[in-house]
């Protein structure tokens, strides 16, 4: 855990440092302006300022260097947000550093030129001239006293040593000298005139006895005096003093003191520049420091949430939707982070819901798949052909049995198969599906493999809204079933035939036996027996002949002669023949006035209706109503014949149309079989009217 400086404390620290520097700058500047030179306090302040600058510079360099190294390392490691942070920090540092640096360089140049201008040639010359004036004035006095001392020494040398003090006193009394003294080599005064003679120390006294003597030594106490001394003899020196004129001295001192200030300031110009530059540098460093600090803080404040956002985005891309960005702020970035967290939260909820839905969907799909497989297996194992078509009749699916029935190879189109002549009826059904979605027909097809009896039924498929989206066609090869039924029917027919043949044979045999017996007995009633016997035999043979003729008709129907004929007329004509059969029989005809002609053989079709009408009359025991209706249904003529008889036993419905099946005692069982055959040869069908419960009903359908 790194020690963290709170922003408020950092601001206070920086502000305090800045204030201290500004105050220091003002004090230093004022100090420089007020004093004639650098006092110890000024020097200390300057040094302190310089040290503070150095410290600031070091800290700043350290911080900059540290930030640069950190930025570089983060950049190299491609840490999230490092580039952005480094750029941001660099921008802040440059924004703070460049103007401050430019200002600082400008300030240095300004200080250099300004300070140098203060001590430029005119000012220097003026100061030097003032000093020179003072020096020359003082030199005049110096030279004067020195010459006087030399002259006095010469005069003193002209007298004996014992007379020299007296001569000196006499010359001083003459009033030309302000002060005069005789000094022994050891520095002791032999004579002081006046008595209040300026003090002389060993140095000045010694100077008198050196070559050149003492020239113009200035003693300012108690009164400004210029002293010059020369050697009189090796043991004696003479000193002459001249008191400086008061006004001259005051002016000279004024000039000298002012010059002192100027000289001191000039000699301190480097320090002056240093103090100014240091102060500006301190401000520059402070500004830069603040810029760096603010930049660092701002870049961190911006880059940290950005980094968190980037990490969050990465986590999100990895699929970790539970990741939240731990950043709480009221600014725009905080809003973005909050939006991000909200988004991930919603995504997480949506994902869990989606997963739940997905699981449910998977279960449903698996269940549907199981059902589909079950149905598929069912379809594959189903022994009936199932074909599904679209609403336009286009084949969608067909199961293996349907392929087998229709002989469709894999990849082969059903249409190409049903377009073959032998499959034309099926093709017609498929083509007509959109117009006639519901039907149930059984047809005999001459396929390649032989004759095939095919049961075809179609049912429309509806979606939950009730709209038809296709048809389901069931194809059932009932050839085997029909064959079995036919065999059964033939067996039954054979039995019936045998029975029918056997029935007449018995009376025939009995008649023959009776005749034979009568002939053996030569019975008198033999003639009568022969006559009766032969009559019975003829009768029974005739019955047998009738039965054989009927069978022949069923077996060999004459070739049809189809031509467009009026079906209503045929029905009316046939029905009228039976209307008079009994008073208790009534025919109800529902036949339209106009009806399109039907291609048919009128004779054969008449036989069909005769059979149906006869069956109806016999079923009703010649008492009841026979209702006949005719209508056009999808290009076919549909005739319904209904009676009011006892109806058909459900068990007999499928045997009705087989040969030699009859519910009548004296029926041949070939009537409806002939009807079926005639209709099939016309492309028509017949089936029991299952919806009719008032008796027996048959529906005949013929193509128009």
């Amino acid at each position, binding site marked *: 855990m790194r020690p963290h400086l709170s922003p408020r404390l950092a601001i206070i620290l920086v502000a305090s440092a800045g204030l201290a520097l500004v105050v220091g700058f003002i004090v230093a500047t004022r100090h420089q302006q007020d004093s004639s030179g650098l006092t110890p306090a000024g020097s200390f302040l300057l040094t302190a300022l*310089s040290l503070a600058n*150095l410290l600031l510079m070091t800290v700043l360099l350290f911080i900059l260097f540290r930030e640069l*190294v*950190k930025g570089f390392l983060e950049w190299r490691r491609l840490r999230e947000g490092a580039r952005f942070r480094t750029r941001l920090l660099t921008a802040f540092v440059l924004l703070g550093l460049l103007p401050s640096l430019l200002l600082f360089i400008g300030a*240095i140049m300004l200080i250099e030129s300004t300070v140098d201008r203060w001590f430029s040639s005119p000012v220097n010359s003026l100061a030097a001239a003032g000093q020179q004036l003072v020096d020359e004035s003082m030199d005049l006095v110096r030279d004067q006293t020195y010459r006087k001392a030399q002259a006095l020494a010469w005069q003193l040398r002209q007298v004996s040593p014992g007379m020299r003090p007296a001569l000196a006193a006499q010359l001083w009394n003459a009033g030309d000298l302000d002060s005069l003294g005789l000094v022994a080599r050891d520095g002791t005064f032999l004579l002081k005139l006046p008595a209040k003679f300026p003090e002389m120390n060993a140095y000045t006294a010694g100077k008198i006895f050196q070559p050149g003597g003492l020239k113009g030594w*200035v003693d300012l106490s108690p009164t400004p005096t210029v002293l010059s001394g020369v050697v009189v003899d090796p043991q004696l020196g003479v000193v002459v003093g001249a008191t400086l004129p008061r006004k001259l001295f005051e002016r000279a001192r004024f000039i000298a003191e002012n010059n002192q200030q100027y000289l001191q300031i*000039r000699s301190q110009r480097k320090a002056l520049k240093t103090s100014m530059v240091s102060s500006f540098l301190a401000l520059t460093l402070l500004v830069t420091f603040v810029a760096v600090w603010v930049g660092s803080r701002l870049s961190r404040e911006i880059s940290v949430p950005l980094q968190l956002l980037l990490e969050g985005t990465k986590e999100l891309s990895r699929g970790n939707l539970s990741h939240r960005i731990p950043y709480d702020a009221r600014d725009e970035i905080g809003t973005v982070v909050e939006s991000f967290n909200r988004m991930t939260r919603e995504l997480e909820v949506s994902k869990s819901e989606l997963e739940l839905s997905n699981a449910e969907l998977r279960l449903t799909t698996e269940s549907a798949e199981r059902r589909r497989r079950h149905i598929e297996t069912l379809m594959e194992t189903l022994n009936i052909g199932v074909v599904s078509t679209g609403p336009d009749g286009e084949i969608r699916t067909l199961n293996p049995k349907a392929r087998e029935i229709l002989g469709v190879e894999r990849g082969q189109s059903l249409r190409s198969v049903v377009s073959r002549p032998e499959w034309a009826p099926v093709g017609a059904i498929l083509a007509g599906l959109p117009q006639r979605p519901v039907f149930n027909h059984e047809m005999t097809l001459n396929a390649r493999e032989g004759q095939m009896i095919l049961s075809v039924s179609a049912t429309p498929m509806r979606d939950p809204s009730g709209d038809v989206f296709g048809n389901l066609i069931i194809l059932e090869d009932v050839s085997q079933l029909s064959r079995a039924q036919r065999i059964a029917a033939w067996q039954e027919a054979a039995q019936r035939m045998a029975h029918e043949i056997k029935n007449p044979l018995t009376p025939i045999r009995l008649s023959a036996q009776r005749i034979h017996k009568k002939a053996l007995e030569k019975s008198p009633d033999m003639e009568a027996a022969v006559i009766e016997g032969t009559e019975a035999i003829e009768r029974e043979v005739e019955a047998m002949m009738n039965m054989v003729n009927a069978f022949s008709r069923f077996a060999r129907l004459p070739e049809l002669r189809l031509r467009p004929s009026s079906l209503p007329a045929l029905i009316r004509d046939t029905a009228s023949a039976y209307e008079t059969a009994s008073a208790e029989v009534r025919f109800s005809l529902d036949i339209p006035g106009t009806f399109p002609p039907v291609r048919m053989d009128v004779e054969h079709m008449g036989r069909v209706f005769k059979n149906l009408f006869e069956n109806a009359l016999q079923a009703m025991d010649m008492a009841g109503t026979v209702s006949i209706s005719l209508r056009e249904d999808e290009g076919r003529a549909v005739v319904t014949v209904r009676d009011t008889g006892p109806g058909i036993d459900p068990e007999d419905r499928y045997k009705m149309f087989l040969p030699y099946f009859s519910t009548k005692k004296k029926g041949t069982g070939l009537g409806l079989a002939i009807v079926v055959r005639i209709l099939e040869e016309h492309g028509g069908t017949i089936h029991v009217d299952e919806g009719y419960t008032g008796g027996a009903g048959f529906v005949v359908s013929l193509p128009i």
Partner: protein
Amino acid sequence: MKAEGNRVRLTHRAMTSFLMLLLAALPVLAAGGPFVKGLVWRYQDQDLVVSFAVGSAFDRSDLKEAIMSTRPVSLTFTVEVLKHRFLWSPRTVVRRKVVHTVQYDNLTRQFALKTKVNDEVTDERVVGTWDEMAKYMEEVVDLKVTSVANLDPSEGTYTVRAQVHVLDDFALWIIPWDVQTPWVSQTLSTP
């Protein structure tokens, strides 16, 4: 955590390199200037007495200008006696600081001189010429550094060394940069 430590170490290493480079540049900046000359010592009346002078101090124009500007200018002479011990850093036995101060009077054209030894004024005088002033300022003559009794030869060897601080200055406008001589040392022989 480990990466953070490595980064901190790298930063510190770089900072150390920078400071060492800065320190290495200092002697280059300090090359030339005044020097200590004529360091001699002797035992006199049970005292260690040292004399020496500073050379080339008054060759500096800034020193001349400073003196002639009438502000007080000082040369600080430091004398130290060091005791050297085996495998140990030398110990300063005694330090003497002699400050020669001169203040020029541009009215009388005389130089007021003053000498302080360890902040105690030992001499004051006024001279009239630059040469006299310079001679006075440059020399330390017969400075009593310490008593012989403070030097125990059985405890190690002793050296006397001297340095002269000439002027306060600033380098690169802002860096306090004193003009001073290098230390000059001489080994003391036991009295």
